[in-house]
């Protein structure tokens, strides 16, 4: 039995709906490694492992499951990650239903607010820290983010 792209998509959906953040599956010489909210580097290696067996369409990873849609950070000296300064619930918008602080492609200044991390009703703003453009958003709205977790990747303006 081999995994088809459809199978991978199905597994991905199951992971999405579960409480787990990581999944490792090994069968018939195929190694599948999925991780929720992964940073670009991890996602890239996970994706390439998958594509070895399921080259067709690539798994349809949903929101929050990062895929290698951008070049890994290591390859791009102008790309920087914005990390969570503390553990909490990450919000992309100032309040439910409001427009997100930033979207992929948004221009940001050093002090632009890119999100909020809530710890027991206490809202902590997260700022971009550099001048540039949002390349990738790695954490979904309302998700638990850990200390040091990469929330977004920004392309620095030279």
């Amino acid at each position: 039995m081999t995994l088809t792209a459809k199978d991978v998509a199905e597994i991905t959906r199951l992971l999405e709906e579960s409480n787990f953040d990581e999944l490792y599956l090994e069968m018939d010489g195929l190694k599948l490694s999925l991780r929720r909210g992964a940073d670009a580097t991890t996602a890239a290696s996970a994706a390439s492992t998958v594509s070895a067996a399921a080259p067709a369409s690539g798994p349809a990873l949903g929101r929050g499951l990062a895929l290698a849609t951008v070049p890994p950070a290591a390859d791009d000296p102008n790309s920087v990650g914005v990390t969570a300064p503390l553990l909490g619930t990450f919000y992309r918008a100032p309040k439910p239903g409001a427009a997100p602080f930033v979207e992929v492609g948004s221009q940001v200044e050093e002090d632009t607010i890119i999100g909020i991390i809530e710890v027991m009703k206490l809202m902590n703003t997260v700022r971009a820290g550099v001048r540039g453009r949002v390349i990738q958003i790695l954490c979904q709205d309302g998700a638990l983010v850990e200390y040091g977790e990469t929330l977004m990747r920004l392309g620095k303006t030279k």
Partner: protein
Amino acid sequence: MEIRRILVANRGEIAARIIRTCRELGIETVLAASEADCDSVPARLADRTVCIGPSRASESYLRVETIVQAALGVRADAIHPGYGFLSERAALARLCEEQRVIFIGPTAAQIESVGDKLRARSEAQAASVAVVPGGAVESVEAAQSLARQIGTPILVKAVGGGGGRGMKLVDRLDDLPHAMELAASEASAAFGDARVYLESFVTRGRHVEVQVLGDGQGGVIHLGERDCSVQRRYQKLLEESPAPGLSDEIRRQLHEAAVRFAKRLAYRGAGTVEFLVDTTRDRFYFLEMNARIQVEHPVTEAITGVDLVAEQIAIASGTGLRLTQSDIRPQGCAMECRVNAEDPSRDFLPSPGVVGDVSWPSGPGIRVDTHIAAGSRVPPFYDSLMAKVIAHAATRSLTLERLRRAIADARVAGVATNLAFHIAVLNDPEFQAGGVDTGFLARLLERSPLKTETVARG
């Protein structure tokens, strides 16, 4: 309520130990770890690890809101606080109560009643449990008058205290004002509470504590006592059960006093009632209650066969007490050595670093609770406990021999350890005779100062 997922809000050997019981019970675990501990042995044992903050405990393990937020975020049903850190902070228990996360421990109100040492004293008196002569003092004048009544030597202790901090010994009444000032400022810095009280100092006292389990409804059982008299500056080093050389009558009275005290609070969960046994007068006094699982709990587990963490979880989930007093039948003797990364030849200076080769003892009647494997780090931010080696056998002398062989077998490279010091204690005739008082270790160190030994690095 059924507990299916527990956030373990601690680190080190106790985190690993809690996770092991959870695995046995089929409960998922999420370890709340600081940056320094994200690739530790407990992190590998847990089903999941969340990084709660930087290495410094004040920015991670001691953050009440962060811990509860982490529990909510990972949808944990309960938080196990372990010992130390937030285990006896009423604020954590209270926030858990508000957020409907089960706190595996007593109620916030119970933590407050035993955390305030003066309140605990009056609860003890109300439960007809003797307390050490002494009491609260509002002023230096009042202190001097009380001190004249109870006589010297006297201990000045912090109301919010523990672990020897904010504690001063006074031999002459003239020194009392200065000692009170020192104790108050230490207590204020360590516990945010400058209040102090006086207690008569028992020169030849033994530290004997009784393990209890309460269902929170007034049902309380005890699981025997532990003797923790081998201490250095109020830090326990070696513990055993049963306490050697106590008369059956005193032992029974200790157990009953502990149960009376816990019943009065309708105590919930695992707790320990500490007593000072005055060996010269064959009397005992209430010292304090520890509202948490204790470092030395495996000693009790060895002789009773009860998994105390499993009982904590059962009580927290509302199952109540699964054991009656008659189910508790202690067998044989158990003894525990705390293996620390510290250098006895340099005044027990902590020795953090990266551990090289490690070999922990094993064999019949030996248990090792540890989070240290080859390559593990002993970070400088936390206590230096690396492992607890527990021996269990039919008699005290067999236990002692077993423990000595086990300690001699232990190998830890890369950091200094107190293993050789443990051997010295286990070889000491006074210790072997049993029933040493809390001054034993200081006398041993004075008698045979430790040679500076070279520590293998690598």
